């Protein structure tokens, strides 16, 4: 038995115990005033397969890979009218990422003073863009892969949740609609081994970060516009193999990022578009190896999904990503532009077999290799095929 398999065992035990002891929600649902707060239990399990025509993307896709698994289990209880607690355990495997290590995806104590003001402490999902806080949840969206220009899977471990506090609220603006806001602040503990970091990197630390999402729900039913802002400090240390001997490196990044969002949901139609930029300012003690200064990445997408029947929902999107837009003199060092960009045209068919089970198939045509990292031999034009099934309740 591998270590990763052993880690799953306690996780399964928790699931069995939860199902055995969870109170039947119907007792509270029908308003029994004597009933204790109900414990709501929800879970999902996903398995996927990926095959690419060229290049390994996220996992060993060029040869076909099943290293695409996810499982989540959450418990939530509304202890009083205004006070709620919850926790979600989550484990996943995606190529070199995750490796089935179960962790607390989120946990919180939530007190909602008013509709327009609630406070929360614990580890909460990062509100950034329309879908960052649900990017783990296959059942809650149509595509298997959300547009990677805005929601990169490689960042999921350390940019989806933050440990600290948050404030949120829903402000009724009368005829002008409503403002749905959420702001978080805290730190992000990172384990380099679990994010697929290169072995030369010995530590990664995000000592502080702050983010906020402000969504204006317009008077037009189903149309919302938003902006998300984020700032974080990223410290990295490592040892590089150099001549004549190893070199210790300390890198300090400050990252500023912003996303503008539009979403329109009308009956069975969903249209979404987002554009974002991330500016990173690097300081380090080895400028000869890592030139200091600022770089800017930019990306965006447009997505359309429509539910044709109760069981079939197709979607298409176009996503574009440009790395290091402001390289300046360094641009001359880039071997080709294809390393600097990634265009992605994707189509998905989502089949809802029943209320608890979905199957998706998805195809991508990619141009460029920016999301692959520095792979000089990468093919600039390539395809990716995915199939994924998820059970949830």
């Amino acid at each position: 038995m591998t270590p990763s398999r052993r880690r799953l065992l306690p996780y399964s035990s928790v699931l069995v115990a939860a199902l055995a002891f969870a109170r039947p929600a119907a007792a509270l649902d029908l308003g029994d005033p004597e009933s204790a707060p109900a414990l709501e239990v929800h879970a999902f399990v996903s398995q996927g397969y990926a095959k690419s025509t060229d290049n390994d993307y996220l996992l060993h896709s060029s040869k076909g890979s099943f290293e695409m698994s996810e499982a989540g289990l959450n418990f939530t209880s509304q202890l009083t009218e205004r006070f709620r607690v919850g926790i979600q355990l989550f484990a996943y495997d995606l190529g070199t990422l995750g490796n089935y290590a179960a962790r607390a995806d989120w946990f919180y104590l939530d007190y909602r003073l008013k509709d327009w003001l609630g406070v929360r402490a614990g580890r909460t999902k990062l509100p950034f863009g329309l879908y960052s806080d649900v990017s783990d949840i296959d059942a809650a969206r149509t595509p298997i892969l959300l547009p990677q220009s805005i929601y990169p899977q490689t960042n999921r471990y350390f940019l989806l949740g933050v440990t600290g506090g948050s404030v949120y609220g829903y402000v009724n603006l009368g005829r002008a609609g409503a403002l749905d806001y959420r702001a978080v602040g805290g730190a992000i503990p990172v384990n380099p081994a679990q994010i697929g970091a290169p072995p030369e990197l010995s530590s990664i630390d995000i000592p502080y970060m702050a983010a906020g999402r402000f969504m204006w729900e317009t008077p037009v039913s189903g149309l919302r516009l938003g902006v998300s802002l984020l700032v974080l400090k990223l410290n990295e240390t490592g040892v590089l193999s150099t001549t004549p001997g190893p070199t210790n490196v300390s890198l300090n990044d400050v990252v500023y990022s912003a996303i503008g969002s539009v979403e329109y949901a009308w009956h069975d139609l969903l249209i979404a578009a987002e554009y974002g930029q991330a500016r990173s300012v690097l300081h380090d003690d080895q400028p000869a190896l890592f030139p200091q200064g600022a770089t800017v990445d930019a990306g965006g997408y447009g997505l359309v999904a429509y539910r044709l029947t109760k069981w079939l929902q197709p979607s298409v999107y176009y996503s574009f990503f440009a790395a290091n837009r402001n390289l300046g003199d360094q641009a001359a060092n880039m071997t080709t532009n294809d390393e600097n960009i990634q265009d992605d045209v994707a189509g998905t068919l989502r089949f809802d077999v029943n209320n608890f089970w979905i199957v998706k198939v998805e195809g991508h045509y990619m141009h460029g290799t920016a999301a692959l990292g520095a792979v000089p031999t990468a093919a600039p034009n390539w395809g990716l095929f995915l199939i994924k099934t998820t059970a949830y309740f």
Partner: protein
Amino acid sequence: MRATRALVLSAVLLSATLGGMSSRGADVRGGSGYRMIVNASNPVETVDRRFLTEAFFKKTTRWPNDLLIRPADQSTDSPARRAFSDDVLRRSVAAVKSYWQQMVFSGRGLPPPELDDDADVVKFVVRNPGAIGYVSPGANVAGAKPIGVR
């Protein structure tokens, strides 16, 4: 690429315009496929569609008298639920379920209880002072109070 982006943005704006026109033109008073009920002690006589949407998505959680709103849904196959979702929420039942999956698995909220039938909804509303639910037009709502939707 720029042309594709422009096309998507145009589609958003066009749909938004059409949606706004439809929203202004709709009148869900006495919706043909459902009837709204509240607890008999609730002084409310009518509610507007937007209030209902916010209440059933749990964005607004209090009645004007500060009582906790307790919405109740019916099962996804219920004709009353389909009519309510289409007329009031302006989303299909599947889209509403997707919304709640996002809320549940991101830790942001729990959906209203899904009750089996009209009788369970009436029972829920009768027992909870802040409750609100929808039932079939012909359902027996004895003990609960029907309200209008504007």
